[in-house]
């Protein structure tokens, strides 16, 4: 029995430059991620979030530096990559880039079969995930007949069926309607309860502030700031540099404190609901 390491992901001095580009996509990036944490990655387009994610399961091999999963460096061999990709799953931003089959059932079964599961186990797992994510009502529809939100759920099921230790969601709420945004967020909540480490790229500061254990601000291929949501939001300079706003609930709370409407004690509320509960 291997002892569980505290850090599930360690990135050391990662550098990566895409062919033909002068500017590196990742520039000497250092980052450690604690097991079971919810980590929000924030930063503008082209700040290196997606490239970093692709390095974490060995799709991109960094030019310099290394990635450790559970304390072991990624081995760029067939077996090593298989192992890493089993542990670290990525839900891509654009479901249409990920879904390759017109059939939802076939689509979801792909990953688990690649892990070498026999047909019976695979079938059981696929059906379980379909039930869990509420895919049943549209599982018989073709991929091109699904809405964006439904496709996203299938894309999440694709990865979930492989039971990864780390799940990466690249802007999961991008171009989703409010209903599906909520569904996706509930799913993410369930993942964390199962003990899965969740890394999520997002532009929604209000959400990240309430959800994340840690926020990582990325800027030009580096980590500009990393810490608890409160720590990160205290660094107004870093927020400004990445064009992020202070979360609404924090702004409101600070105003209320200035006017003496809220007590000085305790941590600031993380969500609007909490603020309402405590002060109104």
């Amino acid at each position, binding site marked *: 029995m291997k002892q569980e390491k505290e850090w599930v992901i360690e990135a050391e001095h990662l550098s990566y430059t895409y062919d033909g580009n002068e500017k590196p996509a990742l520039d000497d990036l250092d980052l450690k991620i604690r097991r079971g944490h919810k980590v929000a990655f924030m930063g503008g387009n082209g700040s290196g979030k997606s490239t970093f994610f*692709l390095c974490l*399961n060995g*799709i991109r091999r960094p030019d310099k530096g290394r990635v450790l999963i559970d304390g072991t460096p990624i081995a760029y061999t*067939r077996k090593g*990559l*298989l192992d890493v*990709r*089993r542990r670290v*799953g*990525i839900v*891509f931003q*654009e479901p*249409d*880039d*990920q*879904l*390759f*089959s*017109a*059939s939802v*059932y*076939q*689509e979801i*079964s*792909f*990953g688990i*079969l*690649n*892990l070498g599961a026999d*047909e019976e186990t*695979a*079938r059981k797992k*696929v059906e379980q995930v379909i039930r869990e994510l509420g895919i049943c009502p549209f599982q*018989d*529809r*073709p*991929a*091109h*007949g699904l809405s964006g939100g439904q496709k996203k759920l299938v894309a999440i099921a*694709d*990865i979930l069926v*492989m039971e990864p230790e780390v799940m990466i969601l690249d802007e999961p709420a991008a171009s989703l309607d409010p209903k599906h945004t909520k569904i996706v967020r509930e799913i993410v909540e369930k993942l964390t309860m199962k003990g899965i480490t969740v890394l999520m790229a997002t532009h929604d500061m209000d959400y990240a502030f309430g959800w994340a254990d840690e926020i990582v601000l990325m800027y030009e291929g580096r980590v500009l700031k990393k810490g608890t949501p409160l720590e990160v939001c205290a660094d107004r300079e870093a927020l400004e540099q990445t064009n992020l706003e202070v979360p609404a609930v924090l702004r409101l709370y600070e105003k209320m404190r200035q006017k003496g409407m809220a007590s000085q004690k305790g941590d600031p509320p993380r969500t609007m609901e909490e603020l309402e509960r405590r002060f109104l």
Partner: protein
Amino acid sequence: MILIDKLCYQSKLRYVNATEKFVYAVLSLVFCIVSRSAAAAVLVFLANGILTVGKGKIPLSHYIKLLLVPAAFLLLGTAAMLIDLSRAPMDAFAFRIGEWYLTGSTASLTRVCRLWITALSAVTCLYFLSLNTTMTDILEVLRKMRLPTLLIELMMLIYRFIFLLLETASAIMTAQESRLGNRDYRTKVRSFGAMASALFVQSMRRSDALYDALESRCYDGTIRVLSQERPAKKKEIVGIALFESLLLLITIWSIIE
């Protein structure tokens, strides 16, 4: 094609075992063509109509519209076989044009009629299959028939991405239209070229992204997937067997004759 795809997902026969439907359609098609018998053709034509419209609940108007496509084609194709230009009139019909006759014989008329109904019945077999079976199910049958995996994977990806391609193309065309991209012939041609090249670039990007996504799910060169089997029903198998035996008898009989 898109219409057929939409209809097949609504068909009430969609969940019938795909192998059954495939075997029925292919055998009927073969008997229809081999026997060249009008009786077999009419039988198949009726059976397919009843199955597709009656059981499958494909709207009759759509079914007729789909049948009109090959029918028009057949009409034009067979006209040449039917009509002769000669100095002497023949027994079926004759129109006089100066010294000549536009004419046809009864023998050629019956031949054309038989060809017509045979060809049309053959087409209904294919319509039956494609209107009541989804593409993914057909691919499953082909996989069972040991068609090369590479071919099946290609067909699977093409089927998935043809819709994305069409979607992108129509989005680009709408955007062009809203900027007067189709004002006259010149701009139309130019817009079309621009759209085609944009589509190509997009496809390249898509294929890169898809490959990354497949790889991150441990893709190793073969796409392995599970299919959902619908159990074959005894009653259906017996029905198909009886129908095909009847066709076989007709075929044998017409060959002997």
